[in-house]
């Protein structure tokens, strides 16, 4: 049989790599994080009843989530 010129599978370079997938997920998570942070800030700013509790919540939030975002950023751009 003559060789067919029809290509049934996409070329390998058009398939997203693992790094591209991770980077896409990173951007999605970063967007979710930014939106969530804005919503959280708005609610505590508007409806909080105690400045000290607002402050402790904010500091705890940033202290626990920012390092994770930092690590994710490094990993996303190195994979």
């Amino acid at each position, binding site marked *: 049989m003559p060789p067919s010129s029809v290509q049934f599978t996409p070329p390998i370079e058009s398939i997203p790599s693992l790094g591209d997938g991770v980077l896409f997920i*990173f951007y999605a998570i970063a967007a979710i994080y930014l939106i969530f942070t804005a919503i959280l800030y708005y609610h505590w700013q*508007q*409806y*909080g009843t105690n400045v000290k509790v607002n402050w402790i919540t904010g500091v705890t939030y940033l202290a626990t989530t920012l390092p994770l975002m930092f690590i994710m950023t490094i990993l996303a751009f190195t994979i």
Partner: protein
Amino acid sequence: MLFEKIKLEPGEEVLATVRKHWFVITAELFGTFVLVLLPFIVLIVLSILPDSMSIVGVNLLEYANVVAFFICVWLLLSLLGGFAIWTHYYLDLWVVTDRRIILVDQVRFFNRNVSVFRLERMQDIEYKVSGIIPTLLNFGTLKAQTAGAHESNFNSTGLPDPRGLQAKIQQAMDARMQALHVTPDELYQ
């Protein structure tokens, strides 16, 4: 801040601000704690059973960065869930004043109910403590009925010391009636 927005009436005095019992938030945050621990438990199990991953032909060490990335994603989403739970807990509030009860119910983000019940319109207040843990830790449900053109009820669960809160509201109601020089019978006629 919230109290600036509630706008108390001139001379109105706040008698108590009440949030749900600490056990309620502890129980809810325990789920978040388990979620945070979950990837580490999975990693420990996989390290104890190194042959389990070779069955599917994957060597986790080759993908250590990817695994670390997804653990970070998992931890971050779990923490966001935990902070959402904390926010909903803390922004739920009962404010009992000498004239009314203000119920702030933070259902979800951008879903907030604020109800005001005037003490002179209150009728029955009942509390219910049901179960072993609520009995031991003294928290329960408070229900009240108000009378008026549109009869309405409120029902709050997980309130600390519901008996004390009921007594406090009852005292405030009595004082309010005296201040208005009316008896409950006159009010509802």
